[in-house]
């Protein structure tokens, strides 16, 4: 019998980050925060108000913010650097590569407004390559929580973890359905529903879409196992393989390009271990555009309907 996930009310994941940052700051005086002129958007204002001496406004200069964060981390602080995902990955890739990843500095790269759901600002701001960019860097942990509660828990957890982290979250209000005050375990995939016909591996905003799809599939007699891949790197290989070998059909769902995303990651793992039919719900090699988050999710086939269609497709290929 599957647990029924209830939406306790829509909330944005960036507010979960803001709440988690404040809590992490209260727990550990070494936690410091930096922002590049997006303090309100990142919901870092509560931290800045409570700990003004531990908050550093960097202005519209992300490259320097990454370097300053590295310097603070070298000297024993735990910096949380916040901006939009677009400006915290592609724009500063070399700074992250040299001063954070290769230098093994304990910096938390906190990226909001990731993916297509950034919405109306359009493709200049909608990055769908960030997971790929970050997971290519040796030594960086990549985390993409699914809702407010989980983003808050993840933010608290990464303050206690020593090492560089890329934390990805978003702008829109989305269902908040995971437990309040959960303990976030980095690297441990979470099985949300037990199923036997197909496994849906989802990350970020797509986890709720996967759950919605699974409930509908159940009504038509298809049993789907939904697994929340909140930590993309290191991937919980054991959990992925166990479920995939059981159901023998896989769908991956993510608000990202196919290139570099969890679909590719899981395909690579399965092709090494035991090839199985896989469908990927993601954007194929194109940029986004302006629109509301809900419109864009539908337009780019990143919703529960797209997941259902991919499940049907993969089941037709199942041996």
């Amino acid at each position: 019998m599957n647990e029924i996930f209830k939406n306790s009310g829509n909330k944005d994941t960036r507010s979960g980050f803001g709440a988690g940052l404040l809590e992490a700051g209260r727990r550990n005086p070494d936690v410091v925060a930096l922002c590049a002129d997006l303090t309100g958007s990142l919901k870092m204002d509560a931290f800045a108000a409570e700990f003004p001496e531990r908050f550093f406004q960097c202005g519209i200069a992300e490259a320097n913010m990454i370097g300053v964060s590295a310097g603070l981390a070298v000297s024993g602080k735990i910096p949380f650097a916040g901006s939009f995902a677009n400006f915290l990955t592609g724009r500063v890739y070399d700074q992250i590569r040299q001063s954070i990843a290769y230098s093994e500095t304990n910096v938390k790269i906190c990226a909001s407004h990731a993916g297509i759901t950034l919405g109306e600002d359009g493709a200049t701001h909608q990055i769908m390559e960030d997971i790929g960019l970050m997971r290519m860097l040796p030594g960086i942990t990549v985390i993409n929580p699914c809702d407010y509660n989980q983003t808050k828990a993840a933010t608290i957890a990464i303050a206690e973890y020593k090492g560089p982290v890329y934390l990805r979250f978003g702008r829109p209000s989305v269902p908040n359905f995971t437990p309040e005050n959960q303990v976030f375990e980095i690297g441990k995939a979470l099985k949300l529903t037990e199923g036997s016909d197909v496994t849906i591996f989802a990350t970020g905003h797509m986890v709720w879409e996967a759950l919605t799809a699974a409930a509908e599939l159940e009504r038509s007699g298809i049993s789907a196992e939904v697994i929340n891949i909140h930590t993309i790197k290191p991937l919980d290989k054991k959990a992925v393989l166990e479920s995939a070998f059981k159901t023998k059909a896989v769908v991956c769902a993510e608000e990202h390009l196919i290139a570099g995303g969890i679909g590719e990651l899981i395909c690579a793992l399965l092709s090494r271990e035991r090839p199985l039919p896989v469908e990927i719900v993601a954007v194929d090699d194109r940029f986004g555009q302006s629109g509301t988050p809900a419109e864009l999710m539908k337009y780019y086939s990143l919703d529960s309907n797209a997941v259902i269609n991919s499940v049907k497709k993969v089941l037709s290929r199942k041996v």
Partner: protein
Amino acid sequence: MLSTEKLNEISCQVRRDIVRMVNMAGSGHPGGSLGSTDLLVTLFFSEMKHNPESWTRDGMGNDIFLLSAGHMSPLFYSVLSRSGYFPVSELASFRKLGSRLQGHPSVEKGLKGVHVASGSLGQGLSVACGAAIAKRMRQENNFVYVLIGDGESEEGQIWEAAMFGAQHKIDNLIAMTDMNGQQIDGPVKSVMDLGDLEAKWRAFGWDTIIVDGHDKEKISAAFLWAKKLRGNGKPKMLLMKTVMGKGVDFMEGTHHWHGKAPDKAQTERALEQLKETLGDF
């Protein structure tokens, strides 16, 4: 505080180390390294508060030095080893497979004295700002020193850090620019003219001073000036006028030796000009 004579002896040996390391590796960057030798020797052997034995990567309780212009690694490694951070014999491993002395400084293999990787230019000044803020938060008396190049100052991030340093009143930060006027493709003036660097730094809100980067007494005086000004709310920039390739006549003043290794005959000619003062590695 060492005498100028003693500092000159060390500089001479460091220059020998640089030439020999680059020759043995068959690659590397002798020009800038030779040009910045006098200022780095003065800093490490006379000015900086540091303790190689108790060194930790977080720099707690010590002054911190960061080499932003990471290609001057032969100089950095020689000065570190001659200061006692690691055995001088390890200099022979420069740029070799498995060595802690990577082509550009890295922390991966735990080389003492290196706080952060550098080499991709323009990043070290930002890192220095962060390290200096951390020291200030802990109310440490120590300073953070960083060395950048004039060519490196073409990177936009340098000027982002310049604004940040002034905005956050980081007055325990002492930055140095190696102004040798040369970069890979030619003189800085013809590649990308930086104009009046001192005026630029002043306009960005820094205290500045122009120093003869080969005169150890003047270098020391500049450090003293910078340290005395702590508390005035301004970061410090020491603009060091240097000659690329200083100490080896055929390398002096030209960009041709920025990133080229001398062959056997050239190495012999160079070493004839540099007395072995402390024993070769």
